[in-house]
């Protein structure tokens, strides 16, 4: 802070002005009224000597005023700026998120009142924050417990269906197999929903638990491709892969989470592409990034859906009546995983012609705090 902006400097000048101006005025009057008469009585030489004396006295008083003003300005400004410094420091700490602060101002004046209000305010913010944290904790605990409680009956249903379908309880007729198979598939999508709900809840709590390691990304993508090929073939969709970089592309990433993120997009591409269409996965390397492209010839994304595609529970208007499967959580989870890797995900889409998704991942992931991500997506959802 520049010295001429400080409180001390302002008090100093005010005090100097207050001390000097009245004195200068009174000296001026004094000299004006008595100079002529004194000169008449005592002669010009004495009068000049007296005038010189007055000048000296004025100068001495000026020095005296400067000293007093410096001292007084120091005391007053310190009196005000000290508690202000304490407050500034306290506000800075609160800005950093430390709410365990109580400032100690014992004065009874206006600054003391400010201090009291300040302490009260901090207490209230802390209360509100504690309450918020507690609610958020209870919410995710509720989701975890609910999801776990849902999983047990879902496992029972799943195991019962598979036991019957695998013939553990005697042969199953074709018609029975058909209808039980459909029920089993519906049950699977319910299991998938519970799984995604748990992931979404963990993302929002900021404890999705990333484990970064060095990953051969081409090999990672090929493995994922093999897993998804069967699903695509079943639907009559041709799935292809193109690993363009000649050298092995290493990425600092969490392979488990990334296979969820990329897998979700491949699943969507296959799911929303009609039989006979194709889905192409390709990998390219830039200097500091890897770029995955997933291109389909599917139904595309309607223009009105484009801005909200990555938000929770949002599903494209054109897919809602196409089939009931799909939880509306896939792209939300994908985006959170990619952003937590310090990457980006975006898409180009032409309605009814197809969609291309791009995922850009830095080779050296700088993991971004997941809470930021969830805040961003929360704001995006409003």
């Amino acid at each position, binding site marked *: 802070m520049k010295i001429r902006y400080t409180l001390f400097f302002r008090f100093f000048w005010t005090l100097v002005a207050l001390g000097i101006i009245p004195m200068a005025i009174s000296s001026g009057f004094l000299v004006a009224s008595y100079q002529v008469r004194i000169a008449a009585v005592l002669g010009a030489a004495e009068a000049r000597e007296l005038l010189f004396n007055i000048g000296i006295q004025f100068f001495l008083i000026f020095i005296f005023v400067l000293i007093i003003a410096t001292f007084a300005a120091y005391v007053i400004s310190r009196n005000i700026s000290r508690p202000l410094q304490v407050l500034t420091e306290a506000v800075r700490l609160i800005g950093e998120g430390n709410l365990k602060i109580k400032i100690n101002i014992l004065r009874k004046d206006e600054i003391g009142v400010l201090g009291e209000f300040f302490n009260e305010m901090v207490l209230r913010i802390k209360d509100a924050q504690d309450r918020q944290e507690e609610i958020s904790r209870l919410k995710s605990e509720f989701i975890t417990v609910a999801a776990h409680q849902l*999983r047990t009956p879902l*496992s029972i249903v799943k*195991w019962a269906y598979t*036991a019957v379908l695998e013939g553990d309880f005697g042969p199953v007729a074709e018609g029975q197999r058909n209808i039980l198979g459909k029920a089993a598939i519906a049950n699977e999508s319910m*299991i998938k929903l519970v799984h995604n709900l748990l992931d979404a809840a963990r993302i929002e709590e900021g404890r999705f*638990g990333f484990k970064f390691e060095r990953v051969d990304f081409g090999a990672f993508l090929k493995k994922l491709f093999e897993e998804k090929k069967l699903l695509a073939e079943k639907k009559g969709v041709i799935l292809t892969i193109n690993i363009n970089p000649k050298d092995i592309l290493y990425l600092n990433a969490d392979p488990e989470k990334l296979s969820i993120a990329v897998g979700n997009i491949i699943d969507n591409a296959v799911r929303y592409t009609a039989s006979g269409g194709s889905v192409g996965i390709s990998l390219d390397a830039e200097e500091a990034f890897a770029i995955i492209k997933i291109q389909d010839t599917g139904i595309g994304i309607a223009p009105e859906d484009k801005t909200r595609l990555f938000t929770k529970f949002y599903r494209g208007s054109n897919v809602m009546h196409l089939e009931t499967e799909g939880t509306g959580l896939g792209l939300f989870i994908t985006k959170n995983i990619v952003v937590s890797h310090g990457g980006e995900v975006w898409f180009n889409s032409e309605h009814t012609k197809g969609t291309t998704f791009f995922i850009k991942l830095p080779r050296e992931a700088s993991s971004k705090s997941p809470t930021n991500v969830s805040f961003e997506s929360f704001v995006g959802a409003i």
Partner: protein
Amino acid sequence: MPDDIKKDVNLSSVPITSMLKRNEIKLLVVEDDRFLRELLVGKLKREGFTVVEAFNGEEAINQIRAEHPHLILLDLVLPGVDGFGVLAAMKDATELKTPTIVLSNLGSREDIDKAMTLGAKEFMVKAHHTPQEILERVKKVLEERYLQQ
């Protein structure tokens, strides 16, 4: 660990399928839900395993001590001592040590890490696997543990 050595001698270099025909491999299934337990135990018994059961943690520890199973299928959420407690007990006492596949509907990274640190060999989420898949994993772990020296 005399029991451990005995198990190794019994099992070494004998293919698992032929041992299954003679009901030589003993499994312990720890699961509090009766229906799930019966389905799983039925499947394993049909495959030729000898199966003992427990429905809570204390029972599980007693069964391990009394029956010396070759492998344990362990649920985590149990009345009384939970699955983590059973894993911790096995980690602490060498005579209880047994390869364990955790079979639970928990499944967060923390739960998985906790179970693995406590010595579990595998972690399977019940809702994501069929009894058939569990059976295959059981065989895989048994082969890794007892047949490949």
